[in-house]
């Protein structure tokens, strides 16, 4: 009885967050058709193996990580994973609702930028800027340390800022002065 109730609760939770899960799958794959298929397989797997869900874990984090793991698992079985992971610009633009021949206001620059990023970087941006996850939670979903998440954000943000044409003369690895209070500066230096 309790298991059935838990099953219903997970299913209802998944239904409630379906658009977010779909967006995650679409952004990960880089296009909507394969994203839909990936999500379908992931949902089936989540419901079939829901005993792996640990009570107390936020359901959205668990669901995102299940989608990501399934995608990674399937990608590794491909003969040419790098080719498979590459998103097509036009397909990616369709994620914004731009159907064939349809005029939809799409931020082409940002869409093109996201489409050309590696899937893991796209999803890092989505989890932090789209879902509001902190670096630790985003890292848990993508099986990466928080430092890696932070590094991806910096790289992507700086790169997009450069593209926006507002780049400055500041070199990317400039020295840091007087911003860290005593002690934190030492800590920062040690971590460099």
């Amino acid at each position, binding site marked *: 009885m309790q298991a059935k109730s838990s*099953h*219903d609760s997970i*299913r*209802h*939770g*998944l*239904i*409630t*967050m*379906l*658009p*977010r899960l*779909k*967006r995650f799958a*679409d*952004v990960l794959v880089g296009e909507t058709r394969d994203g*839909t298929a990936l*999500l*379908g397989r992931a*949902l089936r797997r989540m*419901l079939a193996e829901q005993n792996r869900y640990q009570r107390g874990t936020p359901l959205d984090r668990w669901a995102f990580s299940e989608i990501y793991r399934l995608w990674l698992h399937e990608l590794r079985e491909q003969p040419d994973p790098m080719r498979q992971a590459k998103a097509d610009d036009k397909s990616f633009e369709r*994620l*914004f*609702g731009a159907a064939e021949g349809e005029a939809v206001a*799409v*931020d082409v620059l*940002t*869409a093109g930028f*996201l489409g050309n990023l590696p899937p893991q970087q796209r999803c890092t*941006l*989505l989890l*932090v*800027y*789209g*879902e*509001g996850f902190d670096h630790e939670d985003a890292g848990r979903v993508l099986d990466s340390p928080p430092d890696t998440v*932070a590094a991806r*954000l*910096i790289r992507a*943000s*700086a790169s*997009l*800022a450069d593209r*926006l044409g*507002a*780049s*400055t*003369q*500041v*070199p*990317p*690895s*400039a*020295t*840091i*002065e*007087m*911003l*860290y*209070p005593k002690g934190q500066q030492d800590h920062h230096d040690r971590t460099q």
Partner: protein
Amino acid sequence: MTELSDELLVAYVDGQLAREQTRAVEKVLAQDEVIARRVAALQEAHGRLEAAFEAILASEVNETSIEPMRAVAALRASEPHRATPAKAACVTAGVVVVIVTAAVAYIWPLTLPDLGRWRDILTPRQAEAPTPSWHVDAARAQGLLSRASLEVGLESQGNRDFIAFQLAEAIGPEVRLPNLEPQGYRFVRAQLLRNGDQPLVQLLYLPAKHDPLSLFATEGHRDSEPVFKQEGDVGTVFWCEDGIAYLLAGREDEALLYRIAEKIRHEPVAPQPEPPPPAIPAAALPPFVADTPPPGMVSEPEAPPAEAAAPGALVPSAPN
């Protein structure tokens, strides 16, 4: 010019810095136009990324049409939806997005044609165990039988022609009523069960020792070869022949059940017998009766007891 890394500036734009660090960056921004431009570019990049992900989410939402009243009802019925952190300036828009998202999340799998398979995946009926097929039920029913079920207070149904006639009436003229005496199984009786709307005949045989053997028959489809399957301690062999599906079941090993199944399959079908002689009016005959409906099966409506009928008998007993 003060030089600050993108690492620090991105952390500033993302609100990841401590208050003291934030104040220090702001002091630099006020004095250094180049750094301020860089921060503005990073803020724009940040804003564009947020807007892009919102647009993708809105695109998922816009794939279906939402009736306002239904959306509100769905929102009330659904669990609270966790909104993404929204900045103060975006609170109103954020609330709208949350409402639409929650509403669509509730009805989306029910309305979006492309996502029919998600509806299949996520609807409760898919989560329940599949309904067992009739031959699984039949095998379970067989597991409930013992020698005592047939030995105590039963008389044989010796009028095989009459039984064959009634079987043909219920299932079809091609149904078999095999003679398994050479294999050591004496025919004891037949009973008509029901699997949903379909009649299901059970022919019961008793060996000299051990437990009884059942041959179930019901309407089938395409012809198929015998296939063995173990259901608990009951072995079954299933096959289809001439539009009739058979299931042989008993606490016997696979080889013996296959041999008996082959014997049944190769036994010529007897010509359909004539109806019973008019001396016994058809209306007076009790219909098929199942004495112990097994789980998942419903017996035919109970008939008035007939003196000559043994409990659970298909037809009145006749002297051998």
